[in-house]
């Protein structure tokens, strides 16, 4: 099997992993080594695939052979699919040559569980070590830690990679039991805990000794599959919040479940992936990380799922009319961030701008405020936007209309005159 075919099989097997970021690394270039990771705070996208997702890293599996039989996964052992494995040399050669041509920012290495978690991790470590030490690659590496790997191997992996991730995949233990019988919650959380503790320790050591080895300097992330089980948005968001609070994760990724296999416990194969739901979860995720929201504010037991019609921030604003309108000349930063249509950048700009004079409605658009949403919720120098009249009902309609063009459109279905009736 040649490299082109291997690349095709192992990319195809890796594409359902959502994480593809290169953020968080700040390693400068080293003499005699290729590359660096200091592109910018937000990472660097090198391309966007036809589904609109960013391509930053060479995202492949080391092998798609797997001893596990997780029902939702294309690589499960009972699936009849072509299997392949990269040799460490092939992988290193691909990474270096893609990197030199500026195709990628680094390598995202994951793998099916071949023989045992420990054996697989050893293979990954060997490949990464070759890439780092012999091919002298100094760019970004994101490696998957496989649940059930022994701590010594996770330790070695973390010293080679910039970011580690352990995929939770199914947001509840019941889901894991039903769909991924070979994995347990404990096996997933143990390496996560270890990575967090070790990362913290490495940061403390770095303060004391300048050359202390860095353990996963870009932190860790995880992924949750949305729509394979019946977990509510509230459940998923609470879990996310717990992961950010307790495990200090950099990111939680959501992956709308794409039905790849037919199974009684899974959604049918013709079910569309819940892309809108995934979108809403990402929006809420941002509210947790940058806007000072808590999961309990956004959803509760009465409304355990997000309103598909408006984004979570607008939903919150509609449920809390007493909070609005906010006067932009006097409100503090956290209050500004609660206005739909005001983001981190525009809130900071408002704070800076009002030091040099009072702000008026016309200034806000220039500051980056999205007025088609924000106009309902703010005043500037005591005045609302000119000619603005609305009731609770027309407000909702206005907000829905403001967002609609930005959402993925439903495919228009050609009606046929000849379809059987009924």
């Amino acid at each position, binding site marked *: 099997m040649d490299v*082109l075919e291997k690349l*095709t099989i192992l990319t195809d097997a890796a594409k359902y992993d959502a994480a593809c970021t290169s953020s968080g690394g700040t390693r400068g270039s080293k003499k005699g080594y290729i590359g660096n990771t200091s592109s910018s705070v937000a990472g660097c*996208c090198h391309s966007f695939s036809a*589904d609109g*997702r960013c391509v930053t890293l060479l995202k492949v599996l080391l092998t798609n052979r797997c001893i596990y039989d997780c029902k939702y996964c294309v690589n499960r052992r009972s699936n009849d699919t072509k299997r392949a494995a990269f040799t460490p040399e092939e992988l290193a050669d691909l990474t270096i040559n893609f990197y030199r*041509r*500026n195709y990628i920012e680094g390598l995202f290495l994951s793998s099916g569980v071949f023989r045992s978690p420990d054996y697989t991790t050893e293979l990954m470590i060997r490949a990464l070590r070759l890439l780092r030490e012999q091919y002298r690659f100094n760019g970004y590496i994101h490696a998957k830690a496989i649940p059930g790997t022994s701590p010594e191997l996770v330790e070695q992996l973390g010293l080679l990679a910039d970011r580690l991730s352990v995929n939770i995949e199914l947001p509840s233990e019941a889901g894991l039991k039903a769909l991924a019988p070979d994995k347990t919650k404990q096996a997933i959380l143990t390496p996560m805990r270890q990575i967090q503790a070790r990362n913290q320790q490495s940061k403390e050591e770095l303060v004391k000794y300048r050359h202390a080895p860095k353990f996963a300097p870009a932190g860790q992330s995880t992924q949750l599959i949305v729509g394979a089980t019946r977990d509510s948005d509230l459940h998923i968001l609470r879990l996310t919040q717990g992961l950010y609070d307790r495990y200090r994760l950099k990111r939680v990724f959501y992956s*709308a479940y794409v039905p790849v296999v037919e199974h009684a416990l899974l959604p049918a194969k013709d079910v569309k992936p819940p892309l809108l739901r995934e979108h809403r979860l990402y929006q809420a995720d941002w509210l947790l990380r940058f806007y000072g929201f808590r999961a309990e504010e956004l959803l509760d037991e009465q409304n355990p799922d997000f309103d598909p019609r408006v984004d979570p921030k607008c939903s919150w604003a509609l449920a809390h009319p007493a909070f609005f309108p906010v006067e932009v000349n006097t409100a503090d930063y956290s209050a500004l961030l609660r206005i739909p249509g005001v983001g981190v950048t525009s809130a900071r700009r408002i704070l800076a701008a009002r030091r040099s004079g009072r702000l008026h409605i016309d200034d806000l658009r*220039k500051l980056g405020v999205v007025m088609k949403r924000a106009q309902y919720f703010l005043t500037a120098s005591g005045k609302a936007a000119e000619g603005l009249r609305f009731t609770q009902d027309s407000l909702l309609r206005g907000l829905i209309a403001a967002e609609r063009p930005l959402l993925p459109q439903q495919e228009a279905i050609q009606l046929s005159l000849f379809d059987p009736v009924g």
Partner: protein
Amino acid sequence: MPEMVYYYDGSFEGFLCCIFDSYANKEVLTAIYRDEDFVPTLFASRAIQTDQSHAKRVFRKIVKCSPYTANLLQKCFLTCLPEKELSMYRLVVKLLREGPGFLGNFSDPVLHPVAKAVQHLLAEAHLLKGFVRFSELDGVLGGEIEPKNRVLPVLRSHFCARYQNEKFFIYDRTHKEALFYANGKAVIRPLDDFQMAPPDETEANYRILWKRFYDTIAIRERYNPKCRMTNMPKRYWNTMTEFQDASYFKAQSSPAAVSAPGVPAGISAPGKPPGHGPSAPESAL
């Protein structure tokens, strides 16, 4: 004060001299053009000679008032803002008259156009950090771009740090200039015409591998061309490996080799592999 149109040589120093001379002559500028854009007008005009010491004095004064503005002006000079010189001149006049207090207000009518143009420049440069595609020929990496703004000075530090031990160049088709880097030294030089040489076998092979990776990584059930176009506008596709037609992937330097080794027979290399997600459109716009 009399109104006046100034002409300068097109350099940043020349622009600073326009500011110097407008103060020295007590004139208000209504337009600033480069010499090459000269058109005879009925308005009173003046051709400004570039004097390095004058330019230095103006720049030192601006840095003293606001280092932020000095940086902003240097960046704005690279942008494609129409009549950028006039916007920049007005910013300097306001800065010298009122002091740096208004600079915190992004919506200030004088600051906003300049800051907005610089934002556009930096955003484009950020995208191009990812979208530049290099080809290797005889150990030298070469790439081409078609940006709206003159991004090469902004991109220089990024690529020089990343490819420290390489030799590379990036050719800017729009502004006909190129960034050359070798052995720790980088220069930007005007270059009127440039044609990329066809790929050799190794190069063609990596192009094929990359194209295949790009086509495979997309999930068909999530196909969303609009989202892709928002994130990666079509004007960048022209110079990207993913969107080139079949001839781009054929090795041409050695006519003896018909098909590159490593490409199995039966698979049309650059085309879309059957059943592996939506491929990029064949023709680049």
